């Protein structure tokens, strides 16, 4: 249970010695309750109270980290059921399920850019029928990728073989169930590797995690084995709710297997928005992966802060003084929609990105953050006139209404209205801007 500031205060020495950097024990207790300081800052807490306080300050969903030959994937530490309540923090890792190293190198080098960010596959889930096959496959896969791995088997000997082939790494062992948990937990403990636990009811999951924790394995992942979308939504929601209410038996990230679903895309989309920490896909398919990577980014952006780019003047395709000046806003999606079009066309341009507080063209216009005054100010502060020989700016077609006011603000400039959508910009630049 999370404790209140007052409850924590009662467990502190109450001497106000100030060594923690706070004037009173109560002030320190309040900060602890808000999770803004570490308990270790107070040297005088009794051992008994320390254990109890540590338990209460642990995050409701344990942070679990998989470590590969290079890189890691983290899941957990989430604090809410709905993203608008705060935000979702650790993006679920997307793993491709493989039985051999075929295609791994290609999937490993996959990279896709979305609004200026590069995304890729997070790792691979390796499957094999025998210890020897696991050893061989893991070695071959390791030759093609350094990313974190998941080892898929219920057979402890097969998992042990995979682990042995990955010295120094912490792959996810997937995993334990009611029949094999003692042996698998032992493996996980020795290797310090995280362990996924499968069962088809929450009661049996909790029962297993309690038993495994008692053996000293703390980094667990839950596999609730849902058979269809209605069930996975219910189980995901129930487990997240229980965890947020500090039920420690299920306070772990989830793993989902859309690779087994009737419609992999739909099952994986649900897993991303409804609480999975690790998502296992059946194969490497860019058209599926790209959609999922974008969904994941969208669901995991902080709802308080739209993704923005720095206002300023951006040079596209080495513009010269006679190149056109295009105006847009600093909402990332807007900026990249325009920049990518112009860049792809090979035509040079100056792109003036105004400070519209991270809003799209029409949103900013409707909110009064993208008007003639702001545009004129941007033209002046970024010294656009010094860079160009032709004083001419192109407005987004959606804000054609601004052209009159902008003429008044920038009397010696020619104001042109461009197309509404960025896709049509190259054609417009070729035909209308000569």
């Amino acid at each position, binding site marked *: 249970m999370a404790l209140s500031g007052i409850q924590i205060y009662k467990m502190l020495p109450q001497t106000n010695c100030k060594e923690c950097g706070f004037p009173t024990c109560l002030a320190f207790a309040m900060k602890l309750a808000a999770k803004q300081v570490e308990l270790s800052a107070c040297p005088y807490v009794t051992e008994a109270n320390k254990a109890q306080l540590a338990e209460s300050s642990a995050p409701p969903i344990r942070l679990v980290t998989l470590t590969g030959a290079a890189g890691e994937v983290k899941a957990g530490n989430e604090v809410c059921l709905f993203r*608008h309540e705060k935000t979702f923090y650790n993006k679920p890792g997307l793993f491709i399920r493989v039985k051999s190293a075929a295609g791994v190198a290609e999937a490993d080098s996959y990279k896709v850019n979305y609004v200026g960010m590069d995304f890729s596959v997070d790792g691979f889930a390796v499957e094999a029928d025998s210890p020897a096959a696991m050893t061989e496959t893991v070695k071959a896969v390791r030759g093609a990728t350094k990313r974190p791995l998941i080892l898929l088997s219920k057979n402890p000997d097969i998992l042990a073989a995979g682990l042995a082939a990955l010295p120094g790494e912490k792959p996810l062992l997937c995993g334990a169930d009611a029949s094999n948990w003692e042996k698998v937990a032992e493996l996980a403990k020795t290797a310090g590797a995280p362990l996924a636990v499968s069962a088809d009811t929450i009661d049996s999951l909790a029962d297993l995690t309690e038993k495994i924790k008692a053996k000293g394995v703390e980094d667990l992942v839950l596999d609730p084995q849902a058979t269809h979308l209605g069930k996975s939504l219910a189980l995901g929601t129930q487990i997240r709710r229980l965890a947020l209410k500090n039920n420690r038996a*299920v306070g772990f990230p989830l793993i989902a297997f859309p690779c087994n679903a009737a*419609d992999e895309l739909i099952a994986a989309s649900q897993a991303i*928005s409804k609480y999975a920490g690790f998502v296992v896909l059946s194969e490497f398919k860019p*058209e599926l992966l790209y959609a999922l990577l974008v969904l994941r980014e969208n669901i995991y952006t902080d709802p308080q802060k739209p993704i923005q780019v720095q206002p300023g003047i951006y040079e596209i395709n080495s513009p010269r003084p006679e190149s056109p000046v295009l105006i847009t806003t600093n909402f990332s999606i807007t900026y990249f929609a325009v920049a990518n079009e112009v860049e792809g066309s090979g035509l040079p341009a100056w792109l003036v990105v105004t400070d519209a507080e991270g809003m799209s063209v029409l949103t900013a216009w409707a909110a009064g953050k993208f008007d003639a005054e702001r545009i004129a100010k941007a033209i002046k502060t970024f010294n656009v006139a010094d860079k160009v020989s032709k004083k001419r700016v192109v407005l987004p077609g959606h804000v054609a209404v601004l052209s009159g006011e902008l003429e008044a603000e920038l009397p010696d400039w020619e104001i042109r209205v461009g197309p509404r959508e960025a896709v049509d910009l190259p054609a417009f630049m070729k035909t209308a801007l000569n």
Partner: protein
Amino acid sequence: MPIEIPKDKWNGKVRTINLGATAAEGGTRAKVITVGGETSMPYLHFEAPTPNTPLIAVEIKSRKPTDWSPLLAEAWGEAMNNPAAWAKAAEAAGAEMLILWLTLEDTPADAVSAVKAVLAASGLPLAVFGPGQAEKDNDLMVAVAEAAKGERLLLGICEDKNYRTIVATAMANGHLVNARTPMDVNLAKQLNILITDMGLPADRIIMDPTVGALGYGIEYGYSVMERLRLAALQGDSMTQFPMLVTVGFEAWKAKESKVGEGVPASWGKWEARAINWEITTATALIESGASIVVLRHPESVKRVKAAISELMTA
């Protein structure tokens, strides 16, 4: 010891809304379809039953669109030339409702004849949306509402700029309105208040929160819809309306769906990617509370329908 599953107990309920009228109610639809009635967050059957299955509506246009992705033109073929043929094709593809979207070129007479043709071609409940310019929408919608009196059409797009005319004609002719606001809980609520204040019964409003496509602002629509549903369950009467989302319109605007050439190879195969874009947008929004999801591609209709039937299973 068995774990007790925490269940939310809400006192609010989304209104139940009937779309379409059969001969018995003064229309010509084959049957009445009901949406809404939820008393929990979407599809949490352990908490409360989901009384009505969300509907898949297919968008058809009064004239063959010139700016749609070639993939859509390929999928619908000849049917796109004629709204009645398109309506039949959409029904055959699994549509449970139709949305006839009018264009700026339509005169009121054109609009009326397109609506009549669609009503004659298909017995599904019908929504008719104007092109989205307040004055034009008013002209077209008044003509359509009068010509289809008693059908319980869903008329749109009813926004703060033009709700008066559309609500008045819906009231006079026995239709429903699609109340659209730009992604904001308070604006949605306010428009619903204005509409009910005019005297339109609350069981004739569908709320349209405006959504963005995957990659183009889906997260805003997703969260506003979750917040609207939560407000409804908490008992806020002016948010207790089923929601319609224009997924096809948004998703097929995205470059990822529209364009096949000159895009990064990492986007994958065009057709599969385009359909994935529509489906991902649709399923995320269904899980955040949509009751009517408007789609464009027949393959999306099939796959989203299968997903809905899984979601409806406890």
